[in-house]
C-alpha cells in the first residue's frame, strides 16, 4: 500500500511557481530521498505535505485518505511527523520539557488542567529512555537554546521520532553537522523501525544515497527524475543540473 500519494501538486507564491504539477507515490516503509539544487522546491514540498501551506492545486493522500484539506495538526495526528530545515525547538525550555511536550501530544490528558506535569511519570520515563538511548541524558536539564547546534539537530529529530509516526519527513537533518555527528544522526535514522516511511531531503550525497531506497529529483519546481540510486546517477539531465557533468 502506498503511504503517500501526491498527484499534480502545485504551489504558487504570487507569480513564483515554487512547485509545479508534481506527482509521485511512496510505498509504506520506503526510504525516499528528495534531491535538487537550491530553490528546486524541496522544502516547499515538505511544507505542503505537512500542511504549513495549502496546495494551490493537486491532491495529497496519506494511507489512502485525502489529506489535502486537513490542517497541520490533523495530519500530525494521522501519523505524519516532520523535522525542520531551520532548527525548530522550544528554545527557552529544557531539553527534557521539549521531549515531554512531544510525547504528550499523543498521550491522554494533554489538555488536562487538573493533572500536574510532574505527575506524568510515564511521559518522564519515556523521555528519560529516549535521552539515554541517544546519549543526551547529560543535557536534559539545559535550555534547548543553550546546547550545541549538533545537539539541537539531534533533539529536533528525537522530537519527531517521539511521535512514533508512520511517515517521517526529514528536512536536511545532516546540514551543518560535524563528521562525527553525521555518523550519529545516520545511526538514528537507521535505527527507525523498517515499517516507518521516511522522506529525506539531504545534500550529503554519500550518506543520503546509502540511506535511500528510491530517489526523486526536483528542479525548478518540477519532478524531473525518479528511481533507485544507480538510475539517478546515470540519468543524463540529473548529472547535468545537479551532480555536475563529468
Amino acid at each position, binding site marked *: 500500500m502506498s503511504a503517500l500519494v501526491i498527484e499534480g501538486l502545485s504551489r504558487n507564491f504570487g507569480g513564483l511557481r515554487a512547485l509545479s504539477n508534481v506527482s509521485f507515490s511512496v510505498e509504506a516503509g520506503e526510504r525516499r530521498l528528495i534531491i535538487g539544487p537550491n530553490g528546486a522546491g524541496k522544502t516547499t514540498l515538505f511544507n505542503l505535505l*505537512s*500542511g*504549513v501551506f495549502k496546495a494551490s492545486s493537486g491532491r495529497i493522500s496519506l494511507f489512502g485518505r485525502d489529506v489535502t484539506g486537513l*490542517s*497541520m*495538526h490533523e495530519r*500530525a*495526528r494521522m501519523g505524519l*511527523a*516532520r523535522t*525542520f530545515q531551520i532548527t*525548530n*525547538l*522550544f*528554545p*527557552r*525550555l529544557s531539553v527534557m*520539557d521539549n521531549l*515531554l*511536550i*512531544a510525547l*504528550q*501530544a*499523543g498521550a491522554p*490528558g*494533554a*489538555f*488536562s*488542567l*487538573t*493533572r*500536574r*506535569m*510532574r505527575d*506524568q511519570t510515564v511521559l518522564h520515563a519515556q523521555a528519560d529512555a529516549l535521552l539515554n538511548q541517544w546519549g543526551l541524558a547529560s543535557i536534559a536539564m539545559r535550555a534547548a537554546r543553550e546546547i550545541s547546534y549538533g545537539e539541537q539537530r539531534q533533539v529536533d529529530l528525537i*522530537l*519527531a521520532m517521539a*511521535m512514533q509516526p508512520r511517515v517521517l519527513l526529514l528536512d536536511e537533518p545532516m546540514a551543518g553537522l560535524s563528521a562525527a555527528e553525521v555518523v550519529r544522526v545516520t545511526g538514528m535514522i537507521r535505527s527507525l523501525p523498517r515499517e516507518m516511511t521516511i522522506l529525506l531531503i539531504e545534500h550529503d550525497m554519500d550518506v543520503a544515497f546509502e540511506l535511500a531506497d528510491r530517489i526523486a529529483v526536483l528542479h525548478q519546481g518540477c519532478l524531473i527524475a525518479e528511481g533507485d540510486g544507480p538510475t539517478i546517477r546515470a540519468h543524463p539531465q540529473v548529472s547535468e543540473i545537479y551532480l555536475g557533468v563529468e
Partner: protein
Amino acid sequence: MNRQQQLAIAGIAGAAVLLAMPWLFGSYYLGLATKMIIFALFAMSLDLLIGYTGLASLGHAAYFGVASYATGLLALRLGWGVGWALPAGVLVAGLTAALFGLLALRARGSYFLMITLALSQVLWGIAFGWRSLTGGDDGLPEVPRPDLGLPWSFADNTPFYYFTLAVAVVSTWLLMRVVASPFGQSLRGIRESETRMLALGYDTWRYKFAAFVLAGLFAGVAGVLYVYYNRFVSPDYIHVARSAEVLLMVILGGAGSLFGPALGAALIVLFENIVSGYTERWLLVLGVVYVLVTLFAPDGITGVVRRLRQRKAGQT
C-alpha cells in the same frame, strides 16, 4: 540553605506579613494593600496570556471592567448579594473573553494586539455612551460592599482586606495549578514555537482560546473585587490606559512567572499612590517607567534577579 528552603521561608514570611497587615498598617495603607492584591491578581491573569502563551493583549481591562459593571449593576439595580453577583460578574467576563477570543485569535502578533485593543475600546465606548444603563462618564456610584452575613461588616477595611486576600489566594492557587498542568506546559510550547506544536499534532487554537477565556475569567475576579473595593465603576475601568497599565505591571515584574507580575502590580500601585501625591501626570510617569524597563530590564525584575543569581553562581 538550599533554594527550596529559601523559597519556603520567603513564602511563610510573605504569608505572615499578608495576614498581619491589619495590625502592621493603618486603615489607609490597608486599603492600599487591598488594591495591590486586586491588581496583582489582574496582572497574573494577563501573564497567562503574555508570559505563558506568548499572546500580547492590549485589551485586558475589558474583562476586568465588564465584570465590574456586571457585578455593580446586579448589586445596585437588582440587589444581588455577593454570592450571585461575584460569579455572575466573572461569568460575564468569561463570555466576553470567549467572544473577543473568537475574533482576536484569527490574527497574530501585533495584529492580535490591535484587535484586542479595538474590541476593548468598543466596550469602553458602550460604557461611556449608554448613560441610562452605565451612568456614562459619571459611572455607577455607591455599589454596596458584599455582605456575607458575618459579624464583621465589609464596609470596614479590615474584613474586606481578608475577603480580598482569601479570593486572591484561591485564584492564585488555581492559576498555579493551571501553569503546572499539561495544559500549561502546552501553552509554553505555543509561546516558544507554535509551528512545532502544530507539527507535533497540537490543535494550538484550542489551547490559545482556552487560555484567553481563563485569563478573562481571572481578570473578571479582579474586576469584581475592585468594584466592591471602590464601591464605584466608571468607563476608566475598561479604558486602554488601564490595559496598558496592567501590561506594564506584567513586564515590570517579569512575564512568565506569576510571582513577577504580582510584584510588578504591587509596585506600580504603590508608585502611583506616591506619585499622585505630587502630580496629576501619572500616565506620563508611567510612560517613562515603561521606556526604562524596556531599555534596561526587558525581562523585568524577576529576570534581573535571575541574571544576578546566575552571575553569582558563575563566580563561586
